[in-house]
């Protein structure tokens, strides 16, 4: 285990130090006083645990392939951008484009998240990306989504009592979004429909809810007591008839 104090550091200095520690075979790295440094964990390929105290900057864990990052604080935009595998746990809230183009791994957010959560997420073979948000999310949830799983628990609502924003699943053509609590039809993008989850569907979701509750100290039974809805595209070819040949 190695401790790093990032106070006043530029991201390049901090990331260089983290890369060096990872290269030297450290398995656990604790960084104190993180304050806006970007790209922490970006491109790291080894299974290593990074604990961050503070607020990391944009693109946390971008292109990451394997590490586990735990943030004791809020996050900014682009968490898990194009992430391949690994795990990010945020004991706070996250900004926009959480998990942009994520192909694998898991992101757990205790609080709420911003706009375009899970945009262009896609699954591939054994890679299956999962995003769990405890609170609410803003507009364009799961935009262009092509695979994987997004779970919005709505344990916290926005100022108007919403769990999601508008345009949910616009351009979505694969994957699934589960929302705990009702979602109004008018909020959906034209490519998705609301389905009632089957027992099989719920079995797919419960391990992640369980994990969320264990991570952040929620009562699993209580969280599961409310109804979930499943949002998924009703066609895999939303633009099939768009062109003249």
């Amino acid at each position, binding site marked *: 285990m190695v401790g790093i104090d990032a106070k006043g550091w530029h*991201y*390049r200095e901090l*990331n260089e130090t983290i*890369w060096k520690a990872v290269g030297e075979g450290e398995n656990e790295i604790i960084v104190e006083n993180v304050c806006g440094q*970007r*790209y922490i964990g*970006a*491109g790291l*390929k080894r299974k290593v645990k990074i604990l961050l105290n503070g607020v990391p900057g*944009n*693109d946390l864990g*971008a*292109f*990451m*392939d394997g590490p586990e990052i735990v943030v004791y604080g809020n996050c900014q*935009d*682009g968490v898990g*951008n*194009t992430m*391949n595998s690994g795990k990010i746990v945020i004991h706070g809230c996250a900004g926009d*484009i959480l998990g*942009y*183009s994520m*192909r694998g791994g898991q992101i757990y957010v205790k609080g709420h998240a911003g706009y*375009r959560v899970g*945009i*262009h997420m*896609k*699954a*591939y073979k054994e*890679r299956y990306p999962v995003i769990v948000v405890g609170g609410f999310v803003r507009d364009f949830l799961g*935009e*262009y989504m*092509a*695979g994987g799983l997004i779970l919005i628990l709505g344990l916290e609502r926005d100022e108007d009592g919403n769990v999601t924003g508008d345009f949910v699943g616009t*351009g979505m*053509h*694969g994957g699934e979004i589960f929302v705990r609590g009702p979602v109004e039809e008018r909020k959906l993008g034209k490519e998705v429909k609301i389905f009632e989850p089957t027992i099989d569907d719920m079995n797919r979701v419960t391990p992640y809810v369980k994990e969320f509750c264990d991570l952040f100290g929620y009562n699993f039974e209580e969280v599961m007591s409310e109804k979930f809805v499943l949002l998924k595209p009703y066609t*895999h*070819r*939303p*633009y*099939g*008839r*768009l*062109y*003249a*040949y």
Partner: protein
Amino acid sequence: MAKGKIPPEFLVERDDYKCVRCLACVRLCSYGANYYDENAKRVYTENRKCVGCHFCEAMCPTEAITVMRNPFEIKPLAHWTSEHLIDIMKQAETGGVLLTSMGNDRPYFSYFDRIVLNASQVTNPSIDPLREPMEVRTYLGRKQMKLDLEEDEEGRVLLKTEIAPQLKLEVPVMFSAMSYGSISLNAMLSLAEAAKTVGTYFNTGEGGLPKELKRYGSNMIVQVASGRFGVNVDYLNAGSAVEIKIGQGAKPGIGGHLPGEKVTEAISETRMIPVGTDALSPAPHHDIYSIEDLRQLIYAIKEATRYEKPVGVKIAAVHNVAPIAAGMVRAGADYIVIDGIRGGTGAAPKVTRDHVGIPIEFAVAVVDQRLREEGIRHMASVVVAGGIRNSADVIKAIALGADAVYIGTAALVALGCHLCQRCYLGKCNWGIATQDPKLTKRLNPEIGARRLVNLLRAWEHEIKEILGGMGINAIESLRGNRDMLRGVGLHEYELKLLGIKPAGEAW
């Protein structure tokens, strides 16, 4: 239905005296245009199915076939050309967006064709490149304003300044981004092998990296587009540089869409998406809404690749290209690519391809000028793309301010392409823009590579001849050297934008 009956664009004429009934044309046409009539014992063509790729004509052993344009498809009017009428018919029939491929062919003014080059006479000697050294090598990447040197104990002078990573080009011509999916693996292998032989680069495009190309890493640029297909750390590190694709000349401002039926097992593997799902590239990168955001992605990639590779950014040439380019350079791009209105594509809506963007000649001139004015021209190299047809275009582009050019269409023509502009159908008879194994095997990568090497070598010779004639012995001395250019038949404001004088005006 008769209303929607579209007249054939081409007529396939067959000289019956020459035809030996080998039926090669019947077997070969992937569009099924040619057929044999058992009763008449003659070969016929359904002209309506012909796309004008000239494959049967090229393959006919007795030269019995002539593919020609149907001269009177519809009444030849000046404003309402048959192209317009046919497009209307197609849309009235289907209600769809017209798709097309390759580059814009509208008769916009070609400024390259209105620019002439200089040569030395009397007052300065020209150089004979056959007997005197001539440098066409160039390096792409960030250059330093000044170099700090230091001396070691033995008095040797050492370079103290850290040099940013560079791409070394033996000729100032690279192969444009063309993804696996838009072109065949054999086409990509041809480009890769040729790039390796000549000492230049090919570009994977935005469709990920087929494993067969991994060994060409030292001559490869990998591209990252908004869909992030096939992008992971290994991919970013697989090539010699990473290029962020914001846009392309054939379709500025719009995203891409590879239909699910084209996502086969092999394509799914490189794009890293399940078989049969649509591959949608959003119009913008949704993590880039500003120059500051672009900087963020550039540095995310630099961080992930440990600052070992140049990171470039490609945009389509649009009205505001110069300030955007300046922003890209300030955002940290090591090289920028400007793709003009004639840039090619595997598939694009016709209305976008034909009407959006600006000619590359203006774009490169104003970008180079702007970067110089801001004192940041050395901070990034400028690569120009979009309709470069020959060595003269290369020279003119460099003299207008480019460091190097990308060629896509010209490279495909070297591989057999006849510009029928039907890449989007995926049935390319020449084995280039298709994934059908029966068709792709028609393109032998060894022969393809040889033809591409020939093309680049020929251009290299011609570039050296022209440079020698100008009395210049290095391509880098030509960059932005607009005194070597003169305009013919151009308006004053056009000359001003291009930064060149009219023909006849001395220094």
